[in-house]
């Protein structure tokens, strides 16, 4: 029944030039590498990840991370010895910031690791099966989306005891909804494509269609979303710690450091501003990278 629209000549060079000679990976890399903000984002994210992975080797004073007190060296302003200064018990702020990235990234990995598979799975099912499956999943998602994540996390950590584990659970409880929404909308479009109908006719199982046909087509959108998410998770984690509901001292956490350092503002600004800048730096990196990936993959559904 579809109106044939054959024979439209190439509107751009991608169609004019046979694609066979240029791989998709190369095209993606070409687009990415010519997008300066994306490259900056990627560099920042790599720095943050390197800090987290190699903290003991990078940090100037690894012994000063947690239970270390040196009252002679407390409240030292930034200097050659202590680039970010020292805190109220004499610990090197730079060292603690570098270790702090470990906590932040752990939070990101656990939260996204829990919520993405769950959210994606529900989104795929709602989009592909439709009917009551769709109604149940999507209404549930709507309800969950109506709850502000920070408020929910505050409630959960307040009820349970405040620690890193509970903070991660609290954030994950609502995080999947965004992925369900995203994957649902992509799947709805994909399922009308002929390759899905073809798989049905060829006798493929529902599991095959969900995970082998539909899921691979969602991967670029998920990776963009996950990258953008990372920044938000870091921010929410830091907010919880700032409020004393997340990671507890003396564990080096960026949010906690900002909170503790805030007592000494404005004179001893480095104690809160430096960790604050570190949070900003990481979030900026993930957001720039996420936007860059979005342009590169040309996905539109992602917020």
């Amino acid at each position, binding site marked *: 029944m579809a109106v044939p629209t054959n024979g439209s000549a190439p509107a751009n060079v991608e169609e004019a030039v046979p694609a*066979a000679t240029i791989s998709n990976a190369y095209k993606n890399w070409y687009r990415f590498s010519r997008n300066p903000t994306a490259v900056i984002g990627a560099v920042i994210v790599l720095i943050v990840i390197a800090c987290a992975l190699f903290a003991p080797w990078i940090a100037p004073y690894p012994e000063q991370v947690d239970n270390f007190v040196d009252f002679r060296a407390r409240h030292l302003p930034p200097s050659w010895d202590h680039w970010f200064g020292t805190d109220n018990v004499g610990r090197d702020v730079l060292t603690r910031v570098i270790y702090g990235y470990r906590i932040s990234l752990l939070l990101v990995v656990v939260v996204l690791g829990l919520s993405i598979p769950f959210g994606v799975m529900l989104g795929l099912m709602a989009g592909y099966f439709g009917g009551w499956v769709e109604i149940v999943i999507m209404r549930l998602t709507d309800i969950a989306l109506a709850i502000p994540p920070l408020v929910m996390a505050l409630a959960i950590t307040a009820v349970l005891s405040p620690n890193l584990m509970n903070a991660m659970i609290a954030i994950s409880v609502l995080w999947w909804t965004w992925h369900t929404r995203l994957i649902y909308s992509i799947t709805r479009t994909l399922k009308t494509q002929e390759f899905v*109908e073809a798989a*049905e006719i060829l006798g493929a199982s529902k599991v*095959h269609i969900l995970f082998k046909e539909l899921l691979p087509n969602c991967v670029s959108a998920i990776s963009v979303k996950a990258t953008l998410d990372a920044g938000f998770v870091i921010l929410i984690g830091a907010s919880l710690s700032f409020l004393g509901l997340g990671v507890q001292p003396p564990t080096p956490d960026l949010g906690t450091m900002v909170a503790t350092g805030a007592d000494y503002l404005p004179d001893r600004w480095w104690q809160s501003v430096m960790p604050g800048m570190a949070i900003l730096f990481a979030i900026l990196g993930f957001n720039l990278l996420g936007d860059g990936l979005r342009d590169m993959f040309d996905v539109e559904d992602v917020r």
Partner: protein
Amino acid sequence: MSETPLLEVSGLTKHFPIRGGVIQQRVGAVRAVNDVSFAIKKGEVFGLAGESGSGKSTIARMVVGLYRPTAGTVHFDGSDVSGLIGSRDYRKQVQMVFQNPGSSLNPRRTIAQSVAVPLIFHDYPKAKIADRVAELLEMVELPRSFAIRYPHELSGGQKQRVAIARALAVEPRLIVLDEPTSALDVSVQAKIIDLLAGLAGELGLTFLFISHDLSLMRNFCSRVGILYLGRLAETGPTVDVFGSPAHPYTQALIGAVPVVSDEEAALKPSIPALSGEIPSPSRIPKGCSFHTRCPFAFEPCRQTDPVFTVVGQGHEARCHLLEERTASAATVPVSPVERSAHP
């Protein structure tokens, strides 16, 4: 004629509900296919031609089991499979090649992965799958090396060959071709049609060929059915339907085809150009659904739906002019063009 047809559909009907309002209640229906019957003999190419809204793709999707018919029966090789459409056994017998080679292959899967899908799900021995994929690619005249490529690295024609290879994987007996070449250039189309014709002979395949391209149909199909608004207007051997079209719609359709030689132009029936456009399948005109555009419409056309009149060997058309004709004299059928001179 005594031979059992490979596929026989009778009274095939599909209505899609139109929903609206607060509780998404049914407010109407798109009557996409209405009471369509035809039979396809083993080894033949049966063509269904029609313009947009004719229901040709809906019929294709019902035959392969993507849509469940609202009414009607489907017999495959003599047995009633109406309830079995969509089952594994049926899918092994009937396959489909889609219109758009760009979207019928998953962009994220290699050619080999796509072609292997039917093999995996029809219990083909795992160890032999790679060989079978290579063999299938060879059958559609593609190099084995294409197995590791992705669809975007292939041209439209090559993608359509892959889609054909995939449909052949389970050794079906009937392949539904839903406008398999309409998205391709004519030079590529010729190659694909040539390939399909070759495969049909080699493997003893039967085709249900869906198209809007009448010239293509004239060359590829042994019998054709002309659809208008979800109903068959005319059906018969290709040579007869094109040589002496009986239904005014068929005449107009053939008459409107742009051709590339005087020889062909001479074959076109001379009939006044149709006015207006095809009505929406959600508002099918009463009586003969074609009467709103038919240059020969007279009173009965607005009142009652015509029935099929036999106009030749296996050649039937659904038109009041023909009914009248056969009622008055059971002689050789005359086309409505001549008939219209003295209604």
